[in-house]
């Protein structure tokens, strides 16, 4: 597949933004400046970006608890994200969602999800909207290797096949579910999904080009009425399950080699197709990312908390009873 400079620039910028966004919030979190649980996406950046690069705002994604990368790849603004991670009033979700429930309806980002396996049925519903209203849109669910076992995922796979929904099951096999190594052999997830009756494939999740090619095909299939597709992208988790997990259960050698092999950025930059992105352009992108992060972090940490009455708002569009007064 050929790539033009704009595509390469966008791909690089998004992957690098995810990487640096996460490194930055990690450091803020370690300093106690961000609340809740956060889950780092490092070394899976190529998956989110490869998956979303061809998507439009009327395409949908349903994300996971490890959702920052998906947000950025789907076009969410860093400022709104940073405010949300800091749980501030002007965050994407007014601080009520936080990292694990961040969402942006204007971008078709239907939410991170703190329920493992919660997203795929929702993504199937968004695909049903696209099909029913004939928008030409597609819908993608991100699913961890651990989540792939959850019954809801099987149900969504089957529904997508039966209704021939424009949907992509984007599995992210990073080998671990929390502190436990997933016992499934590589490729088993794609095989399972395939056995529901849809095309499925396994790709190297640290290879942007591999992910993107598979997703382009899947998205086109969806737009053209060809039904769902499953993609298992494999790339080992870099950090612990959540920030603060020392990964005592992972042995150092395994970790070192997986970390190195799985880094999508050098992988990307070493590809001959990327020659067009010269060092000065990269430096420019990088410095604009760092500047943007400095700005948004500073802005977010100084921003206003939700005012107390916000506890009670937006439970319903409207409610005709005392319980909401």
């Amino acid at each position: 597949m050929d790539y033009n400079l704009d595509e390469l620039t966008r791909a690089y910028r998004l992957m690098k933004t995810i990487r640096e966004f996460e490194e930055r919030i990690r450091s803020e979190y370690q300093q106690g400046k961000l609340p809740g649980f956060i889950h780092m996406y490092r070394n899976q950046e190529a998956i989110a970006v490869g998956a979303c690069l061809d998507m439009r705002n009327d395409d949908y994604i349903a994300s996971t608890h490890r959702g920052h990368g998906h947000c950025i790849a789907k076009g969410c603004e860093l400022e709104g994200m940073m405010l949300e991670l800091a749980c501030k009033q002007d965050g994407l979700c007014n601080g009520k969602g936080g990292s694990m429930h961040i969402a942006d309806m204007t971008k078709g980002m239907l939410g991170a999800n703190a329920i493992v396996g919660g997203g795929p049925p929702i993504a199937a519903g968004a695909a049903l909207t696209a099909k029913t209203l004939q928008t030409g849109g597609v819908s993608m669910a991100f699913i961890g290797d651990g989540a792939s076992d959850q019954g809801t995922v099987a149900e969504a796979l089957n529904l997508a096949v039966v209704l021939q929904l424009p949907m992509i099951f984007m599995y992210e096999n990073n080998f671990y579910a929390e502190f436990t190594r997933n016992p499934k052999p590589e490729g088993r997830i794609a095989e399972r999904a395939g056995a529901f009756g849809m095309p499925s494939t396994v790709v190297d999740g640290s290879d942007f080009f591999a992910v993107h090619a598979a997703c382009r095909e899947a998205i086109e299939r969806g737009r053209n009425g060809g039904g769902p597709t499953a993609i298992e992208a494999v790339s080992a988790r870099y950090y612990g399950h959540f920030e603060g997990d020392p990964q005592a259960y992972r042995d150092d050698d395994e970790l070192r080699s997986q970390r190195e092999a799985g880094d999508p950025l050098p992988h990307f930059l070493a590809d001959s197709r990327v020659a067009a992105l010269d060092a000065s352009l990269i430096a420019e992108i990088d410095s604009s990312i760092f500047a943007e992060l400095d700005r948004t972090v500073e802005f977010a940490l100084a921003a206003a908390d939700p005012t107390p009455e916000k506890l009670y708002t937006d439970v319903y569009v409207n409610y005709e009873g005392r319980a909401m007064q």
Partner: protein
Amino acid sequence: MKMSVREAINLTLHEEMARDPRVVIMGEDVASGQGGVYGVTAGLTEKFGVARVIDTPITESAIVGAAGGAALTGLRPVAELMFIDFLGVCLDQLLNQIAKFRYMFGGQARTPLVIRTMIGAGEGTGPQHSQILYPMLAAIPGIKVVAPSNAADAKGLLAEAIRQDDPVVFCEHKALYMDECEVPEGDYVIPFGKARTVVQGTDITLCGLSRMAVLADQAAAELAAEGISAEVIDPRTLSPLDEESILASVSKTGRLVVVDESNPLCSMASEISGMVAEFGFDYLDAPVQRVTAPHTPVPATPCLEKDYVPSVADIVRAAKKALAY
């Protein structure tokens, strides 16, 4: 026009689908079957086609979740959960996803969704097909719960439910499907949170939920024969609950019997009793009597099932107990 509850629901589905092309029906056997086990969705496929009347596999999480995802993205689904007992296999999508979308996304989302479901005992179908379970749903912030007791209310409340922008669970008592009454023709919408005074009275208030409103009405007739004037209130919507009407009635009568077919603990009967004990304390001349099913599953055998369901005699007995206080 005189019609049954089943016919009123079927008619309303026809009218609302004709009124708004975004309304879609989904569920098991709703289309290619005979309109479900009780024929409630009969004729819709012939009229609106399989793109809007959608047969699904037997996967309630996928049904409810997809309905949620579809609602979030522009459709107005009316999904069928055949029996409310099946809440067990799909609760997460209601509890953690649909109910919370709007709040956790900071007010970005609207989820115009109706889940139609059958409740109640009396058909000899045993412990897993006869439950009430609406207290579990009424407890959930973000969900509304409706339980009509006659055909006219079924029509007006279902129309309102479908036009609402909040998720609504619409509970159809299967032992009421064949009950007939006059139903207003044309556009007929009943606002939520407005109880119906079935009978006016002065000595005691009987508050009956769903089918129990019908039994309370019968009990009032029996009491009237003995010279006791009972006021019968049907809240019609359980969340929101029209607390004012209940309190106003109790302020007049000083006595209350709450009749609820559900199991007793943490029930709507407890909720209403607790509410009146808190906000209507001064009105009460006697303890609130709760008439509910016992703290047991629903037995299959009809000879025990009839004792399981509250009866007119139980209501009369409770009323007399309150009056004798």
